[in-house]
């Protein structure tokens, strides 16, 4: 894959990751109106979805995928796929629950313990998600994914 194509993709992925991190960090501070809070939550979920789409598009671009060896790619990046969707699910759940509870007054302190457990899980998952996603984004710059090679042919023969 040409650098000219890879460069904006990587920049976009970094941007989406950074936006998600910022939103995670500062949404707790920006509780002015419930509508604004809702908008920020939606923005964060959309960012996660976009980054998932970009990763899958990168997968589809690889020679391995186009050759039909889909399972190889999925096995290599199963952590990424798993954590992306897990993190997305956690985020959506947390946002929905939080908004339901905070809609009358965004500044109230939530007393339900379950919410905080979920909060802890979401924060932990976010760290792992950032790490795994960044690693995947960098690894997909490996040109061996996009070229025919001895290794790919051997895998093909194995699966025939």
């Amino acid at each position, binding site marked *: 894959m040409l650098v000219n194509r890879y460069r904006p993709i990587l920049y976009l992925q970094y941007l989406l990751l950074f936006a998600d991190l910022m939103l995670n960090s500062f949404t707790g501070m920006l509780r002015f109106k419930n509508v604004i809070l809702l908008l920020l939550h939606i923005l964060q979920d959309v960012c996660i979805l976009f980054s998932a789409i970009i990763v899958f598009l990168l997968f589809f671009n690889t020679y391995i995928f186009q050759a039909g060896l889909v399972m190889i790619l999925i096995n290599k990046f199963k952590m990424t796929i798993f954590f992306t969707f897990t993190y997305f699910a956690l985020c959506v759940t947390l946002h929905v629950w939080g908004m339901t509870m905070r809609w009358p007054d965004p500044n109230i302190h939530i007393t339900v313990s379950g919410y905080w457990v979920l909060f802890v899980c979401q924060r932990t998952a976010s760290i792992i998600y950032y790490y795994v996603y960044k690693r995947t984004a960098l690894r997909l*710059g490996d040109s061996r994914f996009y070229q025919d090679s001895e290794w790919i042919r051997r895998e093909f023969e194995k699966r025939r």
Partner: protein
Amino acid sequence: MNGTSGSLRKLPPMSPRRENEEEDVYATVRKSRKKKRTVSDERASETNPGMSSPALTDTDRSMRSRRSDRRASRSMEDISESQQPDSTPQRKKRKKKNPGSDLSPRRSLPRQASDSGQTELDGSALSLQNKSESEVTQNGTGKLKTTTSKKKKGKKAQDQIFCYSNQVYEGPVGLAAELTGLQDDVVLTSSNGEPVEGISISAPYMKSTPSDKLFMEQPGGFTSSKKINIHKRRMQLATVGSEPTDHPADQPTQTTISFALGSHHIFMTLTLFCQGLFAGIALWHIITIQLMVNISYDNLLSQYTQLAKPLESFYYLLFALCTVAAFDRYDVHRPNRECVFQGLTMQSGSLSTACYLIGLARDNMLKIWTVLSMVRGIAAILGWAFATISPQVDRLRATLENCKENEMDEERGYSNMAFTDGV
């Protein structure tokens, strides 16, 4: 070569057998026409002395349509013939020798009129040919000889319909036939490799001549430059030794993996700074909490709550960056059990970050919260300390660089284990 001669557009032979069939058909027709020829010739001589029998010429033409050189010679003879007033018998003789003699006037006609093979088949097309031929005779040049009466044309049409009855001709007529025929004309050549005469109307207008300009395709179109100038420029650049800017192929291309490594290096530099900052803030936090606790819990709560929210946010931000950097540094994805402790110390901080808010509102939880904050602060400082012990450790970078090396190894036939394992 066989389909392009004269007004009678012969179909390219589909198979040798078919050609023979054609010839047989024409042979029979020719025999039957011999009787008609004399009559038609007489009529022709009556109407116009410079005319030749169309029936005869058509069949003969079809027989010899493939011999382009003979046709050429015939055309010359036709021209010479037409210049002399010929008696009918002489003309007949000449026509026997050069049966395709009528080809030349047809050929010299504008292409629209002359090369449509179906003009004989179609009545409307016939009239077209008649017109063209009448024009030909009116021009009065040496090449032009023939005009035929419509009656004869009609007869000829019938004959040709008869002789083409074995063939299946499906296609456009008139001008459309002309234009469709042009494709075949461009492709076909004679057996000796010479381009067929009259092969394309565009041939005389589109001759390719070598010029001294070199055309280069740019995104916006083609640009031309003289070859001499290009050569001079190359020589200059070779002596100067600078990179030629007009040869993109010579520029070193940055691979995707090198770009990825560059971005990762920038990230590691940033996070190194963040780790230091995080450790500093954690230390300040520990000290402040301890001081306030020593005074009283109420004091702590009243003065600290103002800072709580932004601090928490900032804490989390730095914590996330540092943890990811720690993971990258020690490549947790492929645990090697060497320095996983580093990542763990950072990781423990995440839980305490989360518990921050829980402890904030509850008195009985304040102690837990204080303890957790201390733990978190110490973990941050320790993590930073471990990073500074070996700041050049970067396993992710090593993994990414491994990709490049393995490329070369592959070429040499080595197996690339780093690429093939599950991660």
